[in-house]
């Protein structure tokens, strides 16, 4: 088989499975969810199969060990422990490295996995789980079991789960087991056993076995009857709680029935699976770009057509144009989503990274992610990962203090790190906020002076925030002790450059003792957007609809003054007013009543005063060019239906 053809697919799917395992591992660590074990097992199994087919034995071998270890946990024979979790985490790291090696043309044999393999093997070989508690998860339900139990319950039977342990000195295990079954048959009916009945008959079990049993007797009676059998050391009888006890659920028997109810996690899981398994085809990005370009031209022509149809005023023509408009609107939302991907793809790798970084330097960090579904351009997604990794590492390394320091400062032992993504205007904002020590501005200032980054005159003239921003200056590091993390010779200046090369901006806010917030704002690179066209004097501007909350009419008399700022009452909230004509020095008269476009950024609002609202329109965003870059409050330009250029207002600059 020519495997090259499948390499791309293999790499993609491997990444997906690695991601899924990592997510589930974290879930397992936090909740001990049985479903997580199933998921991890499934992914490990798939990884093993794929890599074996592709001939990457190193990956196959490691996943095989992992699968074997998990199989025991899954079957309830062994209990998962921290050591196993850590081993699995490092196994996934190693597999990731192997996959990366394969991606660059290697054979994936670049990682020494001996330690991991032996850790798995010692887990597999260790003494089996002594299981005095068998309340949950001994029997995974199947359709047959469930229907039997449902039927039995309808006729007044109760389902029990028995854990029988024979004494160490037992000679004829199978015979004793047979006697147990014999007793049970008198009281009710054995539905299933674990191991299977044949295995028990052939003595293929250790000292204990489990029985799923339906009976009209009580648990006590059953327990008493079984314990009468000689050489039975212990019997534990519990009521079998299956999902099928509620009859309508009996159909969905694939769900693991015996596990204790953890409603939230379990209901969310099938959804996640569905996303991972959504069918995709891979399309060359160039083709999509060509499609976008063609479509842009088409949209401009459509604008022209609309205007012409308006002038002609022929009903049939208008109707046809209207149809075209509707069709293209749908087409457009489709085309636009082609290049967009949720930032989840980048965020997904952070929980594990935060865990391992924090562990390495003995810090406790709780990571909260919001807005992972925020979509942005594929190109940006590909590039933004590394800068974010750097900022997060930085926050854990320099921001969040050691647990004892935090306690001494009266903070919770566990530091919190928030990672947020959201849309604002035509940009995407990503925030990384920690509740750590904050940046000591004086320390930064003296270090910057010492390293000659700034002159003494500059140092006195700079505001605290400007000084704090110096940590992004080339050749600057605030670490008192060069740790493994920060000592990589890569400074934050690289992060800043990278973000700027993506058309982004990074800013920070810091309060000593309370924490630091980094904010990265990135262009959405949506080239076609919905915008509100507004008029001020002779000039037309476009305000992206995505940043507009609503438009309203305001009377001169409604304007209030607060802190020498003009504000107005917008639904009980005082919102500052910005006059477009003042902002852009447009010569125009002041009207006594005027439209206000209320725009938002995050949860802040601003009212933009304009002369007239022209209407909503699809516009194609065009860059103003390098030469005019950095013009305040203008993010680009667009060509209107009549061929004139209108500038696009960057509402983020109005705050």
């Amino acid at each position, binding site marked *: 088989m020519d495997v090259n053809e499948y390499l791309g697919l293999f790499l993609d799917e491997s990444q997906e499975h690695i991601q899924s395992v990592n997510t589930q591992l974290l879930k397992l660590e936090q909740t001990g969810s049985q479903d997580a074990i199933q998921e991890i097992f499934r992914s490990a199994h798939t990884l093993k199969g794929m890599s074996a087919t592709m001939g990457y034995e190193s990956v196959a071998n490691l996943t095989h060990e992992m699968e074997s270890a998990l199989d025991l946990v899954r079957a309830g024979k062994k209990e998962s422990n921290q050591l196993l979790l850590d081993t699995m985490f490092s196994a996934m790291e190693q597999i990731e490295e192997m996959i990366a090696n394969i991606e660059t043309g290697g054979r994936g044999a670049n990682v020494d996995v001996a330690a991991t393999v032996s850790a798995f093997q010692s887990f597999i070989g260790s003494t089996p789980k002594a299981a005095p508690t068998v309340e949950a998860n001994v029997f995974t339900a199947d359709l047959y079991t469930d229907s039997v139990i449902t039927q039995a319950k309808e006729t007044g039977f109760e389902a029990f789960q028995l854990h029988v342990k024979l004494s160490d000195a037992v000679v004829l295990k199978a015979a004793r087991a047979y006697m147990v079954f014999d007793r049970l048959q008198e009281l009710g009916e054995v539905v299933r056993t674990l191991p299977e009945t044949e295995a028990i008959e052939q003595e293929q079990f250790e000292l204990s076995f489990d029985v799923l049993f339906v009976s009209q007797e009580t648990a006590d009676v059953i327990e008493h009857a079984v314990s009468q059998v000689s050489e039975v050391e212990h019997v534990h009888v519990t009521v079998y709680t299956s999902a099928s006890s509620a009859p309508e659920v009996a159909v969905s028997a694939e769900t693991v029935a015996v596990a204790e109810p953890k409603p939230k996690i379990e209901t969310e899981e099938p959804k996640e699976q569905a996303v991972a398994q959504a069918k995709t085809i891979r399309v060359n990005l160039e083709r999509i770009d060509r499609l976008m370009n063609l479509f842009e*031209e088409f949209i*401009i022509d459509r604008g022209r057509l609309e205007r012409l149809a308006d002038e002609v005023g022929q009903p049939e023509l208008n109707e046809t144009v209207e149809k075209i408009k509707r069709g293209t609107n749908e087409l457009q939302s489709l085309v636009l989503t082609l290049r967009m991907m949720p930032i989840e793809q980048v965020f997904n790798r952070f929980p594990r990274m935060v865990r391992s970084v924090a562990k390495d330097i003995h810090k406790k960090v709780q990571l909260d992610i919001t807005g992972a579904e925020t979509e942005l351009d594929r190109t940006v997604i590909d590039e933004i990962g590394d800068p974010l990794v750097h900022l997060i590492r930085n926050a854990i390394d320099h921001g969040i203090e050691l647990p004892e320091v935090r306690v001494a400062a009266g903070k919770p032992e566990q530091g919190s790190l928030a990672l947020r993504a959201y849309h604002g205007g035509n940009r995407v904002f990503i925030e990384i906020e920690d509740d750590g020590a904050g940046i000591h501005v004086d320390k930064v200032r003296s270090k910057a002076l010492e390293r000659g980054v700034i002159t003494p005159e500059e140092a006195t003239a700079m505001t605290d925030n400007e000084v704090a921003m110096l940590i992004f200056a080339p050749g600057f590091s605030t670490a008192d002790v060069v740790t493994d993390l920060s000592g990589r010779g890569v400074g934050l200046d690289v992060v800043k450059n990278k973000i700027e090369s993506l058309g982004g901006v990074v800013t920070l806010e810091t309060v000593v003792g309370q924490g630091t917030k980094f904010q990265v704002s990135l262009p959405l690179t949506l080239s076609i957007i919905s915008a509100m066209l507004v008029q001020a004097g002779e*000039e037309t501007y476009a305000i992206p609809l995505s940043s507009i909350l609503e438009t309203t009419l305001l009377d001169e008399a409604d304007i209030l003054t607060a802190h020498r700022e003009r504000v107005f009452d917008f639904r009980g909230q005082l919102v500052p007013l910005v006059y477009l004509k003042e*902002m*852009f*020095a*447009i010569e125009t008269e002041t009207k006594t009543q005027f439209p206000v476009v209320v725009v938002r950024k995050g949860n802040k609002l601003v009212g933009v005063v304009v002369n007239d609202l022209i209407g909503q329109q699809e516009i194609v965003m*065009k*860059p*103003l*060019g*390098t*030469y*005019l870059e950095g*013009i*305040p*409050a*203008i993010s*680009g*330009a667009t*060509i209107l239906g009549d*061929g*004139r*250029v*209108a*500038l696009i207002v960057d509402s983020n600059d109005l705050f």
Partner: protein
Amino acid sequence: MEQKWVVFSLGTNTYGIDVQSVRSIERVQPVTRVPNAPAHVKGVINLRGVVTPVIDLRLRLGYEAVEPTDETRILIASLNQGDAGFIVDRANEVVESEDVRLEPIPESSRDMLSAHLTAIAKGEDKLFSLLDANALFDEQHAE
């Protein structure tokens, strides 16, 4: 090496710009003002679907602004930073290097403007200064 220049006027002064860097010569068309841009930036135009900045070369070189006439043209130059248009009073002709002789800028006339001039071209009935459009722009940007 054979060189050609597009020669244009600003008032009574004539300048030449390397023909290689001139993409097209356009008639005056509606310019959209860009607020808060430097004064000599006239605005942007729609040049066959590309939003192109337009510079009033008079203002850039320190002359007085004039109203556009029938002869006013926009020279579209392709520069390091992308295309840009220069508004000139009149586009005269294309001059070949064999028709002129290049002389250095006289020391005495070195001033702010001449920093963007590379040489003076003299011919039988011609005299014009060679303009380095990129220098004009780059320095501009740094300001």
